[in-house]
């Protein structure tokens, strides 16, 4: 799905990512772990060019999505974001009804027909395991939902775009354990249809739900391998120290 | 939310269209201008052309008439409206740069007014507040002196200088001969506010007279506030705020009851049109039809 070759990222003079090389397979859950400020979130945001919003961010190297370099001038960023959805750390539903939130994406792409919109909404909410809780009150304000429900709503609206990849930037750090559990089950569900890349502080979470794990440290990709291998016998001692919680 | 905004918009546009189409758009349509109901010029004008009931009510006036609150607005509107017709005081014609029409083939000039040939003749009158209603003696003395000055040769000269038509200019005594009868009024002392008001047609003459008189009587402090001839009577009643009110029309019977009134000068009402209008004369029946709405277009007039 993603092929990244010696990519680096600078915020003005400060170097955030240094010479990252990674390849992310389809329909797998890849977790990015590492101490805060190690650049894992910055890297995640480069995959759907959300870093473009920051003026002084400068990207070098190649980031290929299914063979095409997404930082190529001709590559349409809108098209990229319809393919690569993103869920943020704290839930950010729009100040509209639940229904409007979910169909927001498709509407912006020009889908107008009422029936298709209702279908998309139902499918996405079911996928996000939110349908039963909200099916009767779709016109109510999304702001009234609980934290966990709101996060699942954000996932639902991303799914409504039928993306190929879903990026998740510490999706459960703002949620209580029960809601976190629901999100993790949901991610296991989604694995069969979508490629998921998740940034997390919670190593148990990474161990539980991810197939592959990448360990970042000080802007460098230290180690990238199967999750079982990383958590049992990591190749580099930095990874081992971080996993056993001696620093970070 | 979007639906409600759209509905308001449609509603408002409907109103605008409804309102808009009652403004006729044919080229030659006559726009009729008139003064407000308090104006003396209006009263005199409608009385003389035989529509006196129009003097105080807009009931039968032509649809779409435009009301001007004073002489200045009337002049400004007709100056900017090629199809406009209205009436102003002869004393204002010179400075109005509008075209004055002759009435029944008699030109509106001083001689024709004095001789009576020009029918739209009307007096400039004044009413003074009754002595009993004045608070202080000095106010009475100042008003007496002012009226004496107004009727003196000097006063009449000033009235003539402001296009008022005066009789007996040369026979009137000069101020120097009569000023001794008003010694107390002309003495120095604390300023006394004397309020003038009433007709806007007489305002120019009123201000010129009061300005000249204030150089004669140090205590005399004139305050002018003119709104229309109607205020001449109401302003000089006991609760009114005027010492002396001017009217640019013959006084009604109930306005003469106090007996403190007289004529300042003669004036005339002249029918005016925009400079570009080729019309030069108008008859009584034509002007009546225009104001009643029977005659709507300029070309019907010339036939």
């Amino acid at each position, binding site marked *: 799905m993603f092929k990244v070759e010696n990519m680096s990222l600078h915020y003005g003079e400060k170097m955030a990512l240094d010479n990252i090389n990674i390849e992310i397979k389809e329909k797998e859950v890849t977790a990015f772990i590492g101490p805060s400020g190690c650049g894992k979130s910055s890297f995640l945001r480069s995959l759907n060019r959300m870093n473009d919003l920051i003026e002084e961010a400068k990207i070098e190297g190649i980031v290929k999505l299914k063979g095409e370099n997404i930082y190529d001038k001709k590559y349409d960023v809108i098209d990229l974001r319809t393919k690569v959805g993103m869920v943020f750390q704290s839930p950010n539903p729009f100040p509209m009804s639940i229904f409007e939130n979910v169909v927001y994406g498709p509407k912006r*792409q*020009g889908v107008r027909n009422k029936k298709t919109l209702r279908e998309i909404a139902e499918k996405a909410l079911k996928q996000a395991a939110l349908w039963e809780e909200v099916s009767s009150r779709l016109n109510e304000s999304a702001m009234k939902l609980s934290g966990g429900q709101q996060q699942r709503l954000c996932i639902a609206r991303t799914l409504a775009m039928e993306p190929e990849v879903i990026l998740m930037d510490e999706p459960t750090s703002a949620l209580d354990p029960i809601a976190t559990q629901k999100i993790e089950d949901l991610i296991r569900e989604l694995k069969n249809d979508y490629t998921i890349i998740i940034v997390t502080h919670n190593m148990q979470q990474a161990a539980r739900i991810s197939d592959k794990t990448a360990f970042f440290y000080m802007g460098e990709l230290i180690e990238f391998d199967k999750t079982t291998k990383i958590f049992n016998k990591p190749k580099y001692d930095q990874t081992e120290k971080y996993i056993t919680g001696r620093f970070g | 939310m979007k639906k409600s905004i759209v509905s308001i918009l449609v509603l408002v546009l409907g109103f605008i269209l409804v309102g808009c189409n009652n403004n006729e758009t044919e080229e030659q349509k006559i726009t009729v201008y008139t003064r407000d109901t308090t104006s003396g010029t209006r009263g005199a004008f409608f009385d003389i052309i035989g529509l006196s009931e129009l003097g105080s009510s807009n009931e039968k006036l032509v649809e779409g008439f435009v009301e001007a609150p004073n002489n200045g607005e009337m002049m400004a509107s007709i100056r900017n409206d090629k199809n406009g017709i209205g009436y102003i005081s002869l004393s204002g014609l010179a400075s109005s740069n509008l075209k004055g029409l002759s009435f029944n083939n008699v030109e509106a000039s001083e001689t024709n007014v004095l001789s009576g040939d020009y029918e739209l003749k009307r007096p400039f009158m004044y009413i003074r507040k009754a002595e009993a209603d004045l608070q202080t003696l000095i106010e009475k003395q100042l008003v007496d002196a002012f009226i004496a000055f107004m009727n003196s040769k000097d006063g009449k000269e000033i009235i003539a200088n402001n*296009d008022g038509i005066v009789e007996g200019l040369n026979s009137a005594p*000069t101020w*120097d001969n009569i000023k001794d009868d008003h010694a107390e009024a002309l003495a120095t002392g604390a300023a006394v506010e004397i309020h003038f008001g009433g007709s806007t047609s007489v305002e120019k003459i009123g201000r010129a007279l009061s300005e000249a008189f204030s*150089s004669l009587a140090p205590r005399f402090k004139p*305050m002018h506030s003119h709104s229309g001839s109607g205020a001449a009577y109401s302003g000089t009643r006991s609760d009114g705020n005027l010492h002396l009110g001017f009217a640019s029309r013959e006084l009604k019977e109930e306005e003469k009851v106090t007996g403190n009134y007289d004529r300042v000068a003669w004036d005339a009402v002249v029918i005016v049109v925009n400079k570009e209008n080729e019309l030069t004369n108008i008859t009584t029946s034509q002007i009546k039809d225009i104001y009643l709405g029977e005659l709507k277009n300029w070309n019907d007039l010339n036939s």
Partner: protein
Amino acid sequence: MRKVKKRQVIDLSLKIITYLASFISVIILGAILIFVFSNGSKLLSFKILTTDYNSKPYRLKTTKDVEGLSFTNPNITDAYFSEDFGFAVKDDYTLEGTETIRFVYIDENSPLKTSVNEQGDNEPFKVDFIFDSTMRAVYKDGSTTTIFSKDGAKNVVDTLNGAIKIEAANVKFEGGGIRGSIITTLYLIGLTLLIGLPFGVLTALYLHEIAPQNKITNLLRSFIDMLTGIPSIIFGLMGAAFFIPFTSLLFNNPDMKRGSVIAGALTLVVIILPVVIKATESALSVVPKSYKEGSLALGATKTQTTFKIMLPNALPGILSGAILSIGRIIGESAALIFAMGTFIGDNITITGRSTSLAVHIWSVMGGEIPNINLASTIAIVILIVVLILNISVKLITNSFMKKYK
């Protein structure tokens, strides 16, 4: 690809509409400033700021017989010179744009220099006098001819040809200046701040520092907030119905029943009260809590703390409140038309009637022929003062904020 194209077109058109809309405000400000400065600059001069509004009329007559005198013609362009009396006049316009005749030259030993006024004291004709009334020429045989100003300047000189005296000459020193209104505006600012500022500051101090946070205080606060919602015309009605009778009783002067400067100032006090209170309260809330606690900890009473610690630190806020009030006072028109009337005065007294600059514009624009030039000149004065006030408020609030950042 067709769908992408359509969206880009919509996006572009929305962007263009937004660009255009946002420049409308610039166009409006530009139009207003150009209109005001182009119309107002003609009359803007030191003279207009210092001359009275009402012209000073004189009635003069020459005393000396002019038999056989003759004077040299100074040949002033398009002016008419009278050899007999040694003066030159020309057709001109007054400040208010009406036609008049103006004296442009009077010879040193012209008889007009020794003319006498109505009370008999020596009052010479002066250059810049205007003549828009009548005078009489007196001839050797005692006969007289009336000279009308409406017949123009040339006629004045021609009629005086061969005359030996001038009598009953109504001339005047031109008015049209805005000195009176400027002084009235300064009186208003002074009086209103003198009464309104302490009132507002004390109220703010009470609400913010002393008042127990309970229902009554909230009620007081909501009443004061309601004051901001009242339009200025309603303040005018209140001024006319409450302050005018109150002031004419206070000074027991019946002449004040049509309004006075003090009645206007009191009305303005009520208008600026919420402005001062809000500015003071916001300044008080920025002062760090630690100052207050420090003072109380040292045994100072509540009021001592308020006056010794809180008030001094809130002074910049109060100052910006005062400046905002000045802006409101200068700009106020509807309320003052009711409370002070629209008579433009010259010798300004607290109990007398005159107009502020804003109301001066109102009465000049309301006349038969609105005098745009004079109104725009006054508008320039108001705009300049308002701009200076705005800038100073910005400077104060910035420095005040920096101090506590």
